[in-house]
């Protein structure tokens, strides 16, 4: 969690230094979900993520340096600077993302079908926000995954807002997980600010899907601490409201509290962990900023097979 947050914090730094363009979506406040996923994911599993994809990529084992270099639009990035922060693709780790809300689920469905017919025992995770759970694509993918009992987990990061619109105002159901019934899927709902709970429950979801019992809607409730994107004026909520969320629902602070209470750690040790991760990520960013941008003369390259290099 600490290293994920440090990763996003250097992204903010890179943005200030104009190394990143476009609407950057960070996951600060949602680390328990990224970290909670990591344990149960295997290399052969697939994760298809969203516009807010950094933590899912890190959880999937995407190389940090290549990832940050891509976010910073470098030739040495995961996608040679052609994808950027919203469109990272790492075929070796079966990790991909989409900037189109809801569009991740059908792609995960494809992975799930391939895994099933090849009998590989792998699971496809399609990530969406609460907003994406209202799309037709979500429904269509769940219909097909449910009917064929495919090894798919729809991971719903319910941070209570789709840009400005509160989930409670527009959802016909109290949770997304309870819609699972309609698809013969398992529905799990978990406090997405408690990393232990997320990890246990996500592992159960993966096991369910992996063992051929069909798809899962795994919903983790959490809060986004920053704007929808960097630069969001956040007219829809007050500073105080935001501060209250930070004070009450920070998954890192909550976990540190648990460690302290159980006597597993002390203040100094926890501070050192945070400082250490920060320093590591800062050094990583420095390395990345020294890397070259793509060559403008190659702007047309990589559209078709004829344009591929080694």
């Amino acid at each position, binding site marked *: 969690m600490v290293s994920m947050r440090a990763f996003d914090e250097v992204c903010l730094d890179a943005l200030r230094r104009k190394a990143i363009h476009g609407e950057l979506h960070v996951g600060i406040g949602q680390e328990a979900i990224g970290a909670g996923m990591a344990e149960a994911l295997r290399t052969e599993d697939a994760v298809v993520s969203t516009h807010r994809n950094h933590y899912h990529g890190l959880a999937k084992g995407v190389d940090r340096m290549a990832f940050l270099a891509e976010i910073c639009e470098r030739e040495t*990035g995961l*996608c040679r600077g052609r994808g950027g922060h919203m469109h990272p*693709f790492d075929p070796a780790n079966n990790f991909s993302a989409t900037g189109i809300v809801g*569009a991740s689920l*059908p792609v995960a469905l494809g992975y799930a079908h391939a895994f099933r017919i090849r009998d590989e025992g792998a699971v496809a995770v399609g990530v969406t926000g609460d907003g994406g759970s209202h799309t037709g*694509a979500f429904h269509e993918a769940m*219909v097909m995954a449910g009917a064929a009992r495919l090894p798919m987990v729809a991971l719903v990061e319910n941070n209570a807002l789709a840009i400005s619109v509160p989930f409670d105002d527009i959802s016909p159901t109290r949770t997304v997980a309870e819609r699972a019934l309609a698809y013969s899927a398992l529905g799990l709902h978990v406090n997405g600010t408690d990393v232990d709970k997320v990890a246990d429950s996500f592992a159960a979801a993966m096991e369910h899907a992996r063992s051929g019992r069909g798809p899962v809607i795994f919903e983790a409730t959490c809060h986004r601490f920053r704007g929808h994107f960097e630069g969001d004026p956040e007219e829809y909520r007050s500073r105080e409201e935001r501060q209250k969320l930070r004070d009450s629902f920070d998954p890192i602070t909550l976990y540190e509290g648990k460690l302290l209470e159980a006597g597993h750690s002390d203040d100094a040790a926890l501070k050192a962990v945070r400082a250490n991760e920060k320093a590591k990520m800062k050094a990583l960013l420095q390395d990345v900023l020294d890397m070259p941008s793509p060559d403008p003369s190659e702007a047309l390259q990589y559209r*078709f*097979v004829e*344009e591929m290099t080694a």
Partner: protein
Amino acid sequence: MSAIQRPGDRLSMPLPATIAEAIGLEMERDPSILCIGEDIGRAGGVFGCTRGLQDRFGKDRVMDAPIAEMGFAGMGVGLAQAGMRPLVEIMFADFIGVCLEQMYNAAAKIPYMSGGRQRMPIVFKTAGGCIGSAAQHSQCLWGLFAHLPGLKIVAPCSPYDHKGLMAAALRCDDPIVFIEHKALLLRKGRDFRHNPHAPSEAYTVPIGKAAVVREGSDVTLATLSATVEHALAAADALSGEGISVEVVDLRSVVPLDTATTAESAARTGRLLVVDEDYLSFGLSAELSMRVLERLGFSALKQVERLAVPDVPIPAALALEKAVVPGPDMIAEALHKMAQGA
């Protein structure tokens, strides 16, 4: 395999059977190919382009999908990313609106967005064309798809090309929109004027190469899909009057074989582009411009285009005939060009 058929027998094959044969041969050759679409399994496709394939290859490789195009088009993207080679059938081109997202934002862009690291071998097979089915069931739309970078767009005419281009599409690592024409899908081999015979064995036709399907000296007519047949009919009709028409079958919109068209036009001195798709911002303007850019703006005596004049396809056949280029309309356009010479 069944007993060897003589070419004569094969001419009685419906075009969809030839397409099914191509897909079946490729599926035998490559176990990573699989088909998803509505009514393609039990029914073998509404035109029969996948008939018999589910029995041969099973439900996992020839899947009847629910009416959820966004879902199964995206499934195709995921399958391709997972190392499979999906053929996704969207019954009619008109329905692509509901899943265009997965085609133009995902399939088309991911190879580029990944810096060439994620290949996208996927064939979106669909039926287009105007056959009296009115505005929501009579469109070609290749101009629309061609406008979106990253997709290869194939629209064959002859049975020979349908088979060879389908095989080539299934072997290609890029996303391909393979547009059949509903009127051609209702034909048998012998109904075609050009290249009616598709041999029984597997073969490919290269994607992106046009073919001169009729030689002539007065005017070059470039077109594709069913309009090639109309063009050949019009050219035959005009030959009696001493007007000699060269017909180029483009076969694909992306890549667009400008060289073959330009070479022919340079010889005849005149170019007519005929397109069953909408006129504006489409194939006819694009090809004319590319030919002129290549040959120089004063190289040709005449450049004309004929396409659907920016109107939804009307239901009444008399109206459809008035807006969709058929043999008569093409002959008239050729006449006018001959007079203007």
